[in-house]
């Protein structure tokens, strides 16, 4: 469990906020640390919170946010007196709408295949988990050595094709990963 990774397992905490002008923010709201926006942990502090009114502090500046209107997944927020309109999607609805990785080739690139023949010793993550680039997913034993196999991108584990204790061939598909880096 690498605690230094910004995305924790819970993929239901990742959202995409989309503006009319095409601007898109990927926002991960962890349980206990700072929010992650577009893959970067931001040192944003809550100063005040009421029902539809938040005040944040970031880089020494105040940001007064007020929910102006809300219609299903569309929200208008006033920030320091100026309105911005967003439509909001969970990661799953976002993927379902085919907005990430329309290009099938790119998906393949992020899938993990066995670099050598060996045996799966341990699997650290489950399907549906969020994973960080470079974070170990499973451990593969080959020639008496244990190798950690890591994710090549930030993403969500779509499918795990192997089980603990299973022997695998070189180039065998181990894990399918849906990238969230676009």
């Amino acid at each position, binding site marked *: 469990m690498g605690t230094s990774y910004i995305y924790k397992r819970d993929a*239901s905490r990742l959202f995409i906020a989309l503006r009319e002008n095409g601007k898109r923010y990927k926002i991960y709201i962890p*349980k206990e640390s700072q929010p992650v926006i577009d893959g970067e942990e931001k040192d944003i502090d809550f100063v005040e919170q009421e029902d539809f009114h*938040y005040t944040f502090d970031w880089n020494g500046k105040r940001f007064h946010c007020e*929910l102006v209107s809300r219609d299903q997944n569309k929200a208008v927020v006033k920030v*320091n*007196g100026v309105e911005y309109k967003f439509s909001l999607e969970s990661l799953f609805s976002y993927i379902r709408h085919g907005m990430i990785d329309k290009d099938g080739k790119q998906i393949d690139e992020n899938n993990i295949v066995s670099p050598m023949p060996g045996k799966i010793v341990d699997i650290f993550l489950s399907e549906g988990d969020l994973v960080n680039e470079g974070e170990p997913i499973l451990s593969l034993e080959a020639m008496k050595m244990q190798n950690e196999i890591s994710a090549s991108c930030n993403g969500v584990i779509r499918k795990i094709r192997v089980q603990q204790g299973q022997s695998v061939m070189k180039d065998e598909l181990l894990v399918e990963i849906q990238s969230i880096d676009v």
Partner: protein
Amino acid sequence: MKKRLLIANRSEIAIRIIRSAHKLGMLAVVFQSDKEPDALYLKYADEIIPARDGGNEKNIFLDPERIVNLALEHNVDLIHPGYGFLSENPDFAQLCVDNGINFIGPSPELIRDMGLKTVAKSMAIQAGLPLVPGSDGAIKDADAAKAYADKIGYPVILKASAGGGGRGMRIVEKAETIERNFKSASDEALAAFGNGDMFIEKYLQNPKHLEFQIMGDKHGNVVHLGERECSLQRKHQKILEEAPSASVTPEMRKEMGDMAVRFAKAIGYYSAGTIEFIMDEDGSYFFMEMNTRIQVEHPVTEMITGVDLVDWQIRVALGEELTIKQEDIKINGWAIECRVNTEDPQNRFAPQTGFIDKIHFPKKDYIRIETGVQSGSVVTPYFDSMISKIIVHGKDRADVITKTLAALYEFSLVGLKTTVPFCRTVLQHPDFVDASYTTRWVDSVFTPEMLENEEDEMIGALAATIMYASEYLQLSSDLPAYKQDNLNVWILNKRLTY
């Protein structure tokens, strides 16, 4: 016995005048309008007169007879009209005088004269003030118009003598089109006003609005307190003012200031007054008009001169002699005033009415706040949209811009949109920073997109996500106990540390 001063006005200016009345040992009397019976200014007054102007009644502040009758009933000694409403209504001033009430302002005759543009201009000419080059009276026909335009240079503006509201008005860029424009404007004026007379003036394409503050007493003393620049306007109304102006050199200040004093003395002016000039891109300036009231933007002058203009208005009305001498008036630093109007700058400054759930002002010794509202106040459609003014003083222009921007970032209002984001945009724009902005800036440069910035947008995305996520995470869990285990943990942690 304490003198009783009635303020025939409301909102922030009423509170401002009450402050001066108290300083001078007077009792402040105000009207309570049925159109805003819980207004903030009522709290500051010593005595409240119920105006009973509800329903279809004309609001009290526009009703000269009722004001004077109620003033007499309540043994009022002086009336301060503030700005707007009846402040430049000569009949109201006359009515006060006729009933033995001291009207705080110049004489009714001067209010009348300055209100008539042609009279004011001819008095200005007599005092040697420059006017925008133009025909003295109506111009005979299209040929005469062309001959005149050739003489003063293009562009020119054709105006109907009887006109107003833009009808019978044409801006002509070149000689080829003047004949056609003259005819159509004249026809339009004839149809609209029954009078096709036209006059012609030089048209300033990118003018600046400058104004000199003067103060005179009833003994013939007049001083000027430097200029204010009020070029930043939307719908011909000022929205951000500064003093001094970066476009006025010390030599020009002396020249224009002396001119303003000379004019005021020539017409026998007393009380506070403002002489407005329009300045062309080449630095030439022309007299526009004189305002015979205290102005909304008077605090910027007070900030840089240390002179209390409202105090002096009252003292002059009582017959006191000015103790400030021209040579004692020094300009100290720079000041900016931002008007907080409940208007939507993202939507052509459309007025906003409703509740102010919460309002927070910046507090610093160099910031002055004038406000007619507080948290919980209501903004009604019956009165002006200006609710407050944020005035900031700095050691120089760069310093005051930085301080004002920080002040505006600290300001917050929950419930309605305001002009504050617009002022923030202005303060950061190169045209304001280099002081080249003109009265055309809002129409020709400003777009609502300029109000946005990436930091605000990102934080907005975060706020929207949190609001959405807190529901989504609750809905997506089928365990009722999970309700507690949502992202509020992060929020709660943060709240506890602050």
